[in-house]
């Protein structure tokens, strides 16, 4: 499990950021899309980057 610390913190943070309660009742459209929906689309993109980092840094050698 060595070296898991920062990645585990990053994953936990990513899970926490899923709850975007700060604009849970915000009716604004940002770039033509409801603010919360745009946030969650960006969240998916960030998740892909995070998975890339996970695979690159924690994949078993050999």
């Amino acid at each position, binding site marked *: 499990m060595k070296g898991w610390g920062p990645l585990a913190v990053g994953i936990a943070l990513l899970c926490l950021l899923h*709850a*975007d309660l700060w604009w849970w009742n915000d009716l604004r459209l940002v770039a033509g*899309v409801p603010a919360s*929906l745009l946030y969650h689309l960006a969240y*998916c993109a960030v998740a892909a980057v995070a998975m890339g980092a996970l*695979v690159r840094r924690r994949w*078993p050698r050999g």
Partner: protein
Amino acid sequence: MTVTLIVLGLYLSLLLGVALGSHRLFRGTGEDWFLATRTIGPLLLLGSLFGTHMTAFSLLGASGEAYHRGVGVFALMASSSAVVVPLVFFLLGPRVWRLGRRNGYVTQVDLVRDRWGSSALGTALFVALVLLLVPYLLIGVKGGGITLREITGGAAPEWLGSALLCLIVLVYVWAGGARGTAWANALQTVVFTLLGGLAFWVVVGKAGGLGAALDRVAAERPDLLVPGAAIRPLELASYMLVPLSVATFPHLFLHWLTARDERTFRLPIVAYPVGVAAVWLPSVMLGVLGAVQVPGLEGPASSSVLVRMIRDHAGDALSGLLAAGVFAAVMSSLDSQSLALSSLFTRGVVRHYAGPEPGPRREVLLGRLFAAGVLGVALLLSLVVDRSIFRMGIWSFSGFTALAPLIFAAVWWRRATRAGAWCCLVTAMAAWLAFLLRSWDEPGYTVGGGGLMPVAVMLALSAAALVVGSLLSRPPAAERLARFFPAEEETP
């Protein structure tokens, strides 16, 4: 309507051709039929995993739920899946693949039986998995029926679409096995992802563009543009647990084992979040737009909103093509589920109790007949069950999530014991049944009415039962553990 059906028929013929074409590569062994002799590469694995996971739930269920609850549905299931699903693939996929290759596993039943040295535990898990798969199969079977009914304007009854879907899936799974299923899923994944986007583009175009369409929603149903109007914070948080169900889906487990090697998992893990967003965004948005364009759909009837929008806005040929996209999403799951049922029965029951005597051909035949039988049961149930696709999906997934600690413990926790595994399995299923009966007539049920989804309680109970049961019993024998946790092995 004739043109629509011709286009749909052409697509189904193409699909059968691809799947049956893969039969030429069939090597005549059980391992080839169930696991394609572990030869599937990264792109095909991505296609088969993604196609298997995205089902009628992601198209008809998502749009139907968004019809009532708005854009927040994307956060409930899509963005939560974007993190949790690839993480589960990362933590379990390569380990399970390695153990499967080393010890010859085909199903979770093989793994659990061997890990804890208990035949009865494996059989109990088999029963639990089949029980949980039935509502999941229902989603697909009903989805096919709804699609054909709506696309023909009600001329074709729902049961006909459901039966047609089951028949086509059985034919190509029967002939192609795991390889045929993987090929068909890869094709269908491309089809439903592209056509989902196309459906969104066509509908939004007819509504005068995205801005005009959303302006109308803001004027008539502003509640659908803010998640907070229909979704409580605790509900959002507990939905994050639902995608853990992929740890226990027998059809995904089977596809993990078809991988060529461990590195094959890397592409699916990284690409998954983007794929989930690409499929769910059009579905959720079409559901929201449908609430103002096709108002008045009550309860489960909203599952048909996506197909109604397609029928109302696209021409005949395009309607057929877009309906083929919905069929593709449905069939790409039903086929893997049928294959998984077949392998669970063949390996988990026939091979285990009857030994190798029946022979590989008879084994495969029995597995196929079992899958056909369970699909038949799902078809019959689809005639009487009238719950929404989204709700049925959540119930099925919640049960699988409750069993996730069992699979994680099998490959990650040395101290997990047979007693702990039994406690986990029994608790998970008892909690699932209790909550199912409690909420059957109350679609929006949450624990204590505060927004907490039953899945959170089920998971907490089953995980606690696993830990307590394990710590109160004797640790597993060192020689058994050595087969699962070799000292020199480096894993994620």
